């Protein structure tokens, strides 16, 4: 199941996968209505899937950057407004919490020959989604700056801090670190990354009771705060766009940014050749003597609505299969870190692959993780601004989570 070994052997599947049905994509009847997020990879998939349209089949795709706000309602309707939707670790959980996705085993047995085992998101023995790409936050670093500062490539967050101190002391940069610390979802995600890197557990085993108010939680907060000392003072407003802009302007030497941005910072646009040629990627650092990179691994995939009729589900599955076919992945090799058979690992995907190889945790697929993530994102800023203690911040998170989880029926 290891993604790295799979990525490296996946080339062998090219020929096998490329020949899957094309003419009308084999859709005899039914209509497929796909919903997905809106970015280059999904645009390529949507284009390939909607190529199946016509000849008895109806295939439409809707790309919306707010797709996650539509999925649950769209799948709840009967018949569903969208028969298949783009899902991720977190959104699949939201869909499954309401029992709105259907198992795909039957369809895979019938039409899914080209799917690799690691693409199958199997829950309780049933395949609930088919993944097509991987993503994770990982280390971006500036080789030239680190060399000038006399620091090696950090593999731990303690090393990141030491390198940042050297860079600042040498007067190379005032704020050598950047992070997606924008209050809300982004900040919550940074906490999740760092807390998992400390080996923390979010909940008491087998229950929805929160369990972050502990020594690991405090250590996580202290490490985040230590990092912010080397960040631009505006860090609580920095989302990925801002961090990327800071990076491309050459203001930053190290950041833990999304792998999907690795291509964007080395695309010959927005930056100088000097910065781009010195931009390197590596696994996310470990922290506090931990053995796994402090990041979470994400996959993007497709799930099919439970309320879709058999014919529509089959049509949707075939359309999705065509959308995430090896042919699509090969011709859009630069658009994403594809998990699809035959897609060659791209150089800028190095950080994601190394993080996965290092044993980083996948983003927790627990029914109550969404409520926890929301509570963290909303309650953490006060601590980073020095307005409250780490204990108080963790207690606030737990209190906010308990109120939310009670409302959702988990407590």
């Amino acid at each position, binding site marked *: 199941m290891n993604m790295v070994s799979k990525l490296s052997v996946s080339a062998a599947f090219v020929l096998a996968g490329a020949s899957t049905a094309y003419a009308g994509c084999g859709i005899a009847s039914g209509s497929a209505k796909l919903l997905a997020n809106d970015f280059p990879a999904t645009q390529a998939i949507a284009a390939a899937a909607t190529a199946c349209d016509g000849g008895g089949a109806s295939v439409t795709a809707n790309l919306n950057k707010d797709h*996650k*706000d539509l999925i649950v309602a769209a799948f709840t309707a009967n018949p569903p407004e969208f028969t298949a939707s783009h899902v*991720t670790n977190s*959104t699949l959980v*939201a869909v499954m919490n309401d*029992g709105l996705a259907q198992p795909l085993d039957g369809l895979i047995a019938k039409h899914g020959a080209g799917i690799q085992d690691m693409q199958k998101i199997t829950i309780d023995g049933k395949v609930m989604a088919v993944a097509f790409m991987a993503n994770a936050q990982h280390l971006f670093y500036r080789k030239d700056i680190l060399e000038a500062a006399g620091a090696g490539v950090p593999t731990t967050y303690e090393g990141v801090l030491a390198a940042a101190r050297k860079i600042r002391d040498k007067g190379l940069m005032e704020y050598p670190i950047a992070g997606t610390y924008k209050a809300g979802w982004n900040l919550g995600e940074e906490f999740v990354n760092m807390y998992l890197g400390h080996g923390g557990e979010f909940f008491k085993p087998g229950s929805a009771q929160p369990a972050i108010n502990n020594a690991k939680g405090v250590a996580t907060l202290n490490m985040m705060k230590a990092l912010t000392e080397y960040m631009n003072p505006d860090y*609580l407003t920095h989302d990925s766009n801002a961090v990327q802009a800071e990076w491309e302007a050459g203001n930053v030497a190290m950041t833990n940014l999304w792998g999907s941005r690795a291509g964007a910072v080395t695309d010959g646009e927005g930056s100088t050749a000097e910065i781009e040629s010195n931009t390197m990627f590596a696994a996310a650092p470990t922290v506090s003597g931990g053995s796994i990179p402090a990041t979470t691994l994400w996959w993007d995939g497709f799930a099919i609505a439970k309320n879709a009729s058999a014919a529509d589900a089959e049509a949707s599955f075939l359309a999705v299969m065509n959308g995430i076919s090896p042919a699509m992945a090969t011709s859009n090799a630069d658009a994403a870190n594809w998990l699809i058979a035959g897609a060659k690992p791209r150089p800028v995907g190095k950080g994601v692959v190394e993080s996965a190889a290092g044993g980083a945790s996948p983003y927790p697929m627990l029914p109550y993780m969404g409520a926890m993530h929301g509570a963290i994102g909303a309650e953490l800023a006060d601590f980073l601004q020095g307005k409250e203690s780490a204990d108080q911040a963790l207690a606030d998170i737990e209190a906010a989570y308990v109120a939310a989880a009670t409302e*959702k029926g988990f407590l």
Partner: protein
Amino acid sequence: MPHRTFISFIWPSALAMMLFIALPIVSVAVQSMFIAHEQVIETVENCGPFGCKTVEVVNAEATARLRTDEPLGRFNGAGTYTNRNHLAFKEIGLALAEATGPVDFFGRILNLPFYKALAFTLTYTFIVTPLVIILGFVIALAVNRIPGMFKGPTIFFSLLPMIVTPLIGSLVLFWMIDSKGIIGATLQFLFDNPDLSLKASTTLTWLTLIVYGIWHSAPFAFVVFYAGLQTVPQDTLESAMIDGASRWQRVRHVVIPHLMPLAVFVTLIQLMDNFRVFEPIIGFNAQANATSLSWIIYNDLRGSDGAMLFGSAAATSMLTIIGVCILLAPVVLRTWRANRRAA
């Protein structure tokens, strides 16, 4: 007008509002009093591209059975309203009992999300509303003095802050106030402080949002007042001049009373819109330093991937409506009395 005629005139408008506003408000009010069923959780194996893990999942079938029995969920009464993420009665009680002094007490209260948001919302509302009215009025007076041929372009440029979609308007302004942006860098230069950042401190963030709010809403007040100025009765003004009233006295005793009804209208709309302040917080990524009631609703519905807190958002929405009613009550009462006097 007979009731029958009245109804035949108003029903299309009333029907539209009933269907798309009143009905949702009722459903939101009901929703705010229910919470989800106790979820039936089971432990299963979850495998994906990154290996296998044992995780908990919701047993959808068992939960669905519960849901068929009681589609709305469990009745919770005012429970959601009083929980920690809203009015937080229990936490306030604790703070009252344990606080060492008023500073500690208010510190504890402002650590609660609802009250933290309320503090900013009210500050924003009560600073922005009067300043918008004053600024709009002064601009209107100034524009009224310039020669006719310049009036058209002046009005267009004055309307720009209201016209450009806030989505991009705030994006551009957000960059401008960055410490590397034109406004941020100029301020650093003016104050001779290379560390000055409008985005880092709470006070400066509030100030920025308030200035943006005034800038964005002033054109609305301006247009309304400018129009009102055109109808100021010239004969009253002239007789005031003959009586020897100074320029200021004329404004004070003729112009302002004439514009009073307009000021009430603008106040009403502005109080409501400012109480629901939301877009600038998102546009300026300011949620670390400033949250509002509308932002809390947004965060409940959009803050985490797909895990929407409908009940919580519903409760905050109802509280927003109640807040608006309280804010507007004095203004509405005034109108009511004026109406009765007129009738």
